[in-house]
């Protein structure tokens, strides 16, 4: 572009070349201005919609968090940090945060490790690769609400196949989704089942990207056993993938909603209240928009912290 303008407007050239050591202002000329205008036009729809559907709602949700707005009432007033103060004392919310943390602490590591394990097994196996890949990935491509329903049947305390199997070996089957002691673990199990395939695919992609020559070099350098080679080549080379899979797994676990809504509605006795479900209840069932907005801000803060942790880690640790 620049050289084209130099031809079309030769008068500008000497000025451009003139020695001006400090703050060399770019010369805005006809064609650059045209380019900028076209760019604006191409980007305008996206920009407007980003403002409309992302920026404005985020500002609104932060603002609403400081109000006592309830849907159905025409007026509302600013209440400062009252909502946040209430949050701290809210047993349901605290329980919900705690449950979300537990759920995440189970589902994220389990699905990462299993995903990596399955990927490694599939990668080193020659037969049935595509069958295994399909089998483990199928839950990712399935409608979660539907599969949750299937799990509900599988885990049914009396007629469910899982408990029938346990009964066959003489074990008492728990009321998986129906008792406060097991419900969160049952949901976690479904969560792991649903996400392992996704992580596996990402790890498989990471494994495929490792140059074969590195393994050859490792063998020649004296890494005799597959374990030696795993620590010398595979694990370090999977570094970026792992950070990435970890972030996604954590964020997705924090966003758990579908299974809870479908199977337990937060019960029994709030034993499966999770963050998004609580926000949903407060905001869209009890219509306490102001209060739910404050919760949403907390939720958003958690996501922001996760993302920044990832950026820092990627920048510092696994970069090569």
């Amino acid at each position, binding site marked *: 572009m620049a050289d084209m303008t130099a031809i079309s407007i030769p008068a500008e050239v000497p000025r451009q070349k003139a020695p001006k050591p400090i703050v060399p202002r770019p010369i805005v000329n006809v064609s650059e201005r045209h380019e900028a205008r076209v760019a604006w036009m191409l980007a305008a729809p996206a920009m407007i919609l980003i403002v409309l559907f992302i920026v404005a709602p985020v500002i609104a949700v932060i603002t609403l968090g400081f109000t006592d707005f309830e849907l159905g009432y025409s007026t509302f007033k600013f209440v400062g940090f009252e909502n946040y103060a209430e949050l701290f004392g809210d047993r349901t919310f605290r329980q919900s945060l705690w449950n979300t943390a537990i759920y995440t602490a189970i589902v994220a590591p389990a699905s990462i490790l299993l995903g990596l394990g399955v990927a490694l097994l599939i990668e080193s196996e020659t037969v049935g690769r595509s069958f295994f890949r399909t089998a483990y990935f199928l839950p990712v491509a399935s409608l979660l609400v539907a599969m949750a329903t299937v799990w509900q049947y599988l885990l049914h305390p009396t007629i469910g196949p899982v408990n029938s199997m346990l009964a066959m070996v003489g074990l008492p089957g728990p009321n998986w989704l129906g008792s406060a002691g097991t419900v969160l673990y049952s949901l976690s199990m479904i969560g792991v089942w649903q996400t392992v395939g996704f992580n596996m695919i990402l790890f498989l992609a990471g494994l495929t990207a490792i140059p074969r020559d590195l393994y*050859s*070099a490792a*063998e*020649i*350098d004296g890494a*005799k056993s597959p374990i*030696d080679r795993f620590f010398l*080549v595979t694990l*370090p080379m999977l570094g970026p993938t792992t950070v990435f899979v970890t972030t996604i797994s954590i964020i997705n676990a924090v966003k758990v909603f579908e299974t809870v809504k479908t199977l337990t509605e937060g019960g029994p006795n709030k034993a499966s209240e999770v963050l998004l479900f609580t926000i949903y209840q407060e905001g869209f069932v009890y219509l306490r928009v102001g209060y739910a907005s404050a919760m949403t801000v907390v939720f958003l803060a958690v996501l922001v912290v996760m993302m920044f942790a990832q950026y820092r880690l990627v920048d510092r640790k696994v970069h090569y």
Partner: protein
Amino acid sequence: MSALSITNVTKSFGDNHILKGISLEAEAGEFIALVGPSGCGKSTLLRIVAGLEGADSGEIVAGGRDLTRLVAAERNVAMVFQSYALYPHLTAGQNIAVPLAMRNLTSLQRLPMIGSMLPGQKAIRKDILRQVTDMARSLKIDHLLDRKPGQMSGGQRQRVALARAMVRQPGLFLMDEPLSNLDANLRVHARGEIVDLHRRAGVPTLYVTHDQAEALSMADRVAVMMSGSLLQLAAPEVIYDDPAHIEVAKFVGQPRINTIASRVDADGAVTLGTWRLQPHERLVPGTDITVAIRSEFLSIADMGTPGLPAHIERLEFLGSEVIVYTKLDAIGESMVVKLAPSDARGLVAGKPVTIVPQGERLMVFGADGARLRADLTFTTLLERAHG
């Protein structure tokens, strides 16, 4: 006893016979270049020698040890890869240290953090560090030791790869096209360096390349491979001047050797266009043969001189020499002639000339490509009919 002996190695991938019985011996300290077109099985052979791939049959003995059934780590071989295969997460220094650490430290001692707290490893680590530094200094890469491969140029990476290979003082050195990722200038420079390094280390070396000039210029002996067979293993001069097979003759030398397909006449002579050539020894009448001669052993004379009448098609001026592309009048075959610039004066495209071969440089190859020792000489060129 030779330093390396490869005996009758075969390898197939499924129905593809990639190596069809390769045998090769290397003397102590010898530099052997394995050259051939892409896909002929050079890398496969090298990987089998390294122990990265198993041979279907055959055996490999080096320094008196039978390596055939040993895993790569136990063979004490070093290998430089075309991609260099440096560990991208390790610095140059750590890369070079890997083979030493693998050999001298136990797997417990190698663990990060915990390993450095175990007893007995401190002295070993110090020794490794010293060896790495010495190696780096001798390759002039000591200033790069803290850099990761991603922060180095191609030439620097190549040196680090060399250092990693040499630091363990291997019994056998394998290189798979180590220069093909460098740009042309650097490549010619690096040739000399590798030969130098080889001379200093004195380790038998198998050097794979698809570049015949590289092979001829670097190696003590050149092994020419074609589609899984070794066609000839000999010194560079022999490979060039006295090829045992038509494919060797064609593969080596730039421009490509001139070939003319022909057939042995009933009286044992060979007809070449309007010319008849009388061989020293009798050839079997009726067999197909190929007559070949290198471009520098042809000269160009005025039309009418005894020789092969031709027309000039195109000239290429290369500075120290001129390549003349011609077409023989009688049979329409192309002939390439390499001349000194002074001999090319006055030649222009389209000009009718006579090509005069140096008779003792004519070579004959049989239908199977093998060399027939019944060389034709210039003195036996007989004029039959004036065209």
